[in-house]
């Protein structure tokens, strides 16, 4: 199984032999090595900064006020440089389902366009990015009291390096004539949009459809990396149809990429790699396989259960998935599971576990709508079980004919021995959960405790710790982080573009006018939040629509906790469904499985999610039965 997230199956091999290609290769190697080294070190530094924060607060009872701010500053650098690493390695996520179905010449051209289109965006955004960074210079950060320029500079530097890498890649992998054609097409399209701009302004909110549906879809299906598709559409919309200064978009990238909770993503990815390297993963899988291996689809049930267990920890779904996939997937693949089915199930469990406390989405709903957070916390547990049961039904159906004749059955003694070996690994999720519940660490910090635990187990118990693999693991982590967080940043910018148009009030008014009372309103809400979750992500959608819709729900007689659960699942289904849902691409990136592979498999799971959602929507008791 080779990683399929490459930037082009049709990359022309002969380019490397051309003189320009050879030169490009050399420059790329040198620069790439430097960026890799810095990005990889940043991962390591982040671990120590957060761990220092936990130890200072929990052990010495003297919290460090600056640790979060430093971590967030370094995180922006890590994500931007990680996005550069990902670009060099061709690891930015993209849909190639359509691209791979056209003829070889058209395909080669689309592959080249997948580099020239991002290049056009990078070239145009570079100046606003410099402007943004220089505007941030006089702002003084609150904890360390240093210039905000130290963090904001990461954006122009990262975007600039991405542009250089894209150019080098173009020179190295593609032939001259095709580059000329691709550049010509890109320039022509840019010019077309530019000149059409003034006549688009009077179209008003119709522009939202033109840019955020038509243009995004054209880019995504044309094989342009997802992040750049979002970014380009947003940039074009803001630049052509509004009077917004474009550095605002850079500011949105900054904020979207530096939410501290997202820092859990690289740390859990690294933790996953560590668990694998120390042999803890193998021990755990061996035990689970000996226990459940003779059950059809056994490890898929383990996946669903594991997501339920960890999802309460970080509040960030991508981080939850990062805690699971690297541990389970290699073994599941070795046992013949289809990678596409795995990533589809992972993505589906992402949506299924959104209501499990303590979730940031629940806290957000509580604070923007006035519903008790404690009630939301107790209301969310059972709905996730119900929807999970529907997912398990699909697993059962899909694996009901799985050939288990090759699977060895183990004796009780063997299973016990496996259990003892796997014990440190099995304890890990409980250690992490306990650290959160007992107030040792916050959701962001807790992964560092897992990392420290795994290092100790690896060195002293499993006696398996290959220090030579560390640099590779760190760079790998940085690259994945860059690919994921850059999409989150671009989606944040896109959400700003939608929000500032003021379309949310219109939509709420339209939803209220629906016939059918409570049931009709519930149905419209489900449809609306599936779409919103898909284009806005969970939290922005809640913040926008929660205050508008929860009062309506209450007025038509729907319990607010019940409505919250329905809305969260609907949003989750949108968020984790291709082609627009960022969550789906997050699942793919973390599992290192190409987005195309999951497509044929995810339909069944989405149907299961919808069926589960229908039950949760129809039976209020599931959400409200346990409320005091």
């Amino acid at each position, binding site marked *: 199984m080779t990683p399929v997230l490459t930037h082009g199956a049709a990359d022309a091999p002969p380019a490397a032999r051309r003189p320009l290609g050879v030169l490009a290769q050399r420059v790329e190697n040198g620069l790439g090595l430097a960026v890799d080294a810095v990005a990889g070190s940043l991962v390591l530094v982040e671990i120590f900064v957060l761990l220092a924060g936990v130890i200072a607060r929990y052990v010495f009872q003297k919290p460090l006020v600056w640790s979060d701010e430093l971590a967030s500053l370094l995180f922006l650098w890590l994500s931007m440089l990680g996005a550069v690493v990902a670009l060099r390695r061709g690891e930015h996520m993209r849909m190639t389902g359509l691209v791979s179905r056209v003829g070889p010449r058209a395909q080669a051209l689309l592959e080249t366009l997948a580099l020239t289109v991002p290049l056009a965006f990078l070239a145009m955004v570079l100046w606003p990015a410099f402007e943004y960074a220089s505007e941030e210079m006089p*702002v003084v950060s609150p*904890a360390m009291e240093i210039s905000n320029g130290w963090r904001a500079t990461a954006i122009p530097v990262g975007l600039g390096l991405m542009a250089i890498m894209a150019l080098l890649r173009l020179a190295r992998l593609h032939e001259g004539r095709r580059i000329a054609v691709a550049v010509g097409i890109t320039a022509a399209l840019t010019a077309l949009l530019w000149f059409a701009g003034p006549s688009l302004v009077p179209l008003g909110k119709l522009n939202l459809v033109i840019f955020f549906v038509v243009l995004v879809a054209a880019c995504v299906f044309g094989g342009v990396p997802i992040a750049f598709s979002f970014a380009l559409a947003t940039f074009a919309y803001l630049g052509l149809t509004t009077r917004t200064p474009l*550095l605002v978009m850079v500011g*949105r990238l900054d904020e979207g990429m530096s939410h501290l909770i997202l820092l859990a993503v690289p740390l859990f990815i690294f933790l996953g790699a560590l668990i694998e390297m120390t042999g803890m993963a193998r021990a755990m899988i061996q035990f689970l396989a000996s226990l459940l291996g003779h059950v059809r689809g056994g490890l898929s049930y383990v996946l669903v259960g594991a997501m339920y267990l960890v999802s309460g920890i970080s509040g960030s779904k991508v981080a939850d998935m990062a805690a699971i996939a690297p541990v389970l997937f290699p073994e599941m693949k070795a046992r013949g599971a289809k990678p596409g089915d795995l990533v589809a199930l992972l993505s589906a469990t992402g949506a299924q576990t959104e209501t499990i406390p303590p979730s940031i989405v629940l*806290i957000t709903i509580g*604070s923007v709508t006035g519903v008790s957070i404690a009630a939301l916390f107790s209301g969310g547990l059972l709905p996730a079980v119900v929807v999970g049961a529907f997912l398990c039904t699909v697993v059962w159906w899909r694996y009901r004919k799985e050939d288990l004749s090759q699977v060895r059955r183990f004796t009780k003694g063997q299973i016990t021995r496996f259990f003892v070996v796997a014990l440190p690994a099995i304890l890990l999720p409980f250690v992490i959960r306990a650290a959160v519940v007992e107030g040792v660490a916050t959701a962001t910090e807790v992964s560092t405790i897992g990392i420290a635990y795994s290092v100790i187990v690896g060195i002293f118990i499993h006696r398996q710790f290959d220090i030579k693999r560390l640099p590779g693991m760190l760079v790998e982590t940085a690259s994945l982080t860059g690919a994921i967080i850059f999409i989150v940043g671009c989606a944040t910018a896109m959400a700003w573009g939608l929000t500032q148009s*003021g379309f949310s009030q219109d939509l709420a008014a339209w939803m209220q006018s629906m016939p059918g009372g409570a049931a009709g309103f519930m149905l419209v809400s489900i449809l609306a939040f599936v779409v919103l979750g898909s284009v806005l992500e969970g939290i922005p959608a809640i913040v926008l629509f929660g205050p508008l819709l929860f009062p309506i729900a209450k007025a038509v007689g729907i319990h607010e906790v019940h409505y919250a659960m329905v809305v969260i699942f609907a949003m989750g289904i949108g968020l984790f469904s291709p082609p627009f849902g960022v969550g789906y691409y997050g699942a793919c990136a973390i599992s290192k499985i190409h987005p195309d592979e999951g497509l044929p498999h995810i339909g069944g799971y989405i149907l299961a999610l919808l069926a589960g959602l229908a039950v949760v929507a129809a039976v209020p008791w599931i959400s409200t039965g346990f409320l005091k």
Partner: protein
Amino acid sequence: AEFSLKYGNNLPLTHPLNVRAQEAADRIAKESKGRVEIKIFPNNQLGGDTDMLAQVRSGGLDFFTPSALVIATLVPVAAINAVGFAFGDYNQVWTAMDGKVGAHVRAAIGKMRLYAFEKMWDNGFRQMTSSRGPIATAKDMDGLKIRVPVSPLSVSMFKGLGASPAGLQFSEVYSALQTKIVDAQENPLPIIQVAKLFEVQKNCSLSNHIWDGFWFIANGRMWDSLPADLKTIVAGAINDAGMKQREDIKKLNETVQADLSSKGLQFNKTSPDSFRAKLREAGFYGEWKGRFGDEAWGLLESAVGKLA
């Protein structure tokens, strides 16, 4: 509209600030005969505080209401109203902020290509809640792990009081209090109510330790481009709305306190004396006199009496 303007803030739609701002927007639309339209984006819809500050500077937003501590990242002297235990009551607050202290800060804001409207809006006195028991005097602060919004002024104040301030994100506060990552937090009462912190805290001490308000600011270039007659209409409506919002917050504080006690939060009163003495002893006032400069500090002391 000839001028279609965007106003962003970080409070829920139902907060008096948004209610009054909407009234102002309606009045402006009417008095300007539709020439000026102001659209409100509440609840951080367009970004967090730091990002909205950047947006209003660049013109992505036209209006923004940062609290004093937020705008202080750009205009340090703006933090002066948040000096610990400076104000005894609202009389002193408005004497200072509608008088020379406010004028001094507005001038400093003006130097950053921003325009600050004359009347500051109220965010309220900040109060402390704790799961460790009531805080009556400075002694009760010893070793208290308290979440504070990170700013040099509040961190230095809580350290001066002997507490251990921690700078968690606001979104993590609820669960951090629940799991006892921190013992305490401090906020104005309406925020304690909205964020449901009474579900995870036992005591609330009416310490009034910091008074904070919102500066209603506008992008400088946009403001300069408005014709004089429209400037008068906009400023008149916004300042009037600010005055009404101050009354709202005063009433709100009373009803919120009653509501929070009915939900089980136990209130206790405190006197500022032991806190001020402790801060003086720790050199807090001396340090901040130096950082704000003699002129600004003098204006503050002329309104509230000697601190340092």
